[in-house]
């Protein structure tokens, strides 16, 4: 079956531009996570949704980062006024339920801010 998909796969933005990154989770998955992976590092948690409710946004690095999942399926991560330090791979993951379930990861969006 279809896995987690993300688009675009690559995004180049000039410093100061706004970007929107899309995640399509596995159909029926309740939980959705966003992670940020800087070059040479392990992924770091950004935010968590249970259906349409954003229950944890403790990992968002600044108020320039905003995420939504309005209908409990597709999610968008938006970064306003991008900075060079935002350059990273942004990973989306979904899991079946809230709780200790395996997370399935998408291929990621590589964001480069010039």
């Amino acid at each position, binding site marked *: 079956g279809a*896995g*987690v998909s993300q688009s675009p796969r690559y995004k180049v933005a000039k410093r100061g531009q706004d970007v929107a990154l899309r995640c399509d989770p596995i159909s029926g998955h309740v*939980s959705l*996570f966003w*992670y940020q992976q800087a070059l*040479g*590092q*392990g*992924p*770091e*948690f950004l935010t*968590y949704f249970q259906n349409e409710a954003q*229950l*944890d946004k*403790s*990992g968002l690095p600044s108020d320039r980062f905003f995420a939504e999942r309005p209908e409990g399926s597709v999610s968008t991560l938006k970064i306003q006024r991008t900075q060079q330090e935002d350059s990273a791979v942004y*990973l989306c*993951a979904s*899991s079946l339920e*809230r*709780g*200790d*379930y*395996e*997370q399935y*990861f*998408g*291929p*990621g969006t590589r964001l480069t801010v010039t």
Partner: protein
Amino acid sequence: AQSVTQLDSHVSVSEGTPVLLRCNYSSSYSPSLFWYVQHPNKGLQLLLKYTSAATLVKGINGFEAEFKKSETSFHLTKPSAHMSDAAEYFCVVSDGSSGTYKYIFGTGTRLKVLA
């Protein structure tokens, strides 16, 4: 707070020799631990998962890991390396204390397999 430490950032082995990737964890209660593999330009793939059912966990592609509470370790092993095993490996703990079960990743171990 929960955390994982991967003790080696790079490991090189010859094809056909054993693989050992080391991971130590810190947790205030019985953790759920995972190993994921990341091939270049591909998504993270689950190798195996420990959730307290059995201390020796078998995963895909011949990998296994042993949970040792006394040593707070969860090392990943494989008896015989293949060229296709070359990738980045992440040890992960699931943070249930927050209620979200978000993943906390180690910094990764890059495995190189020499012909």
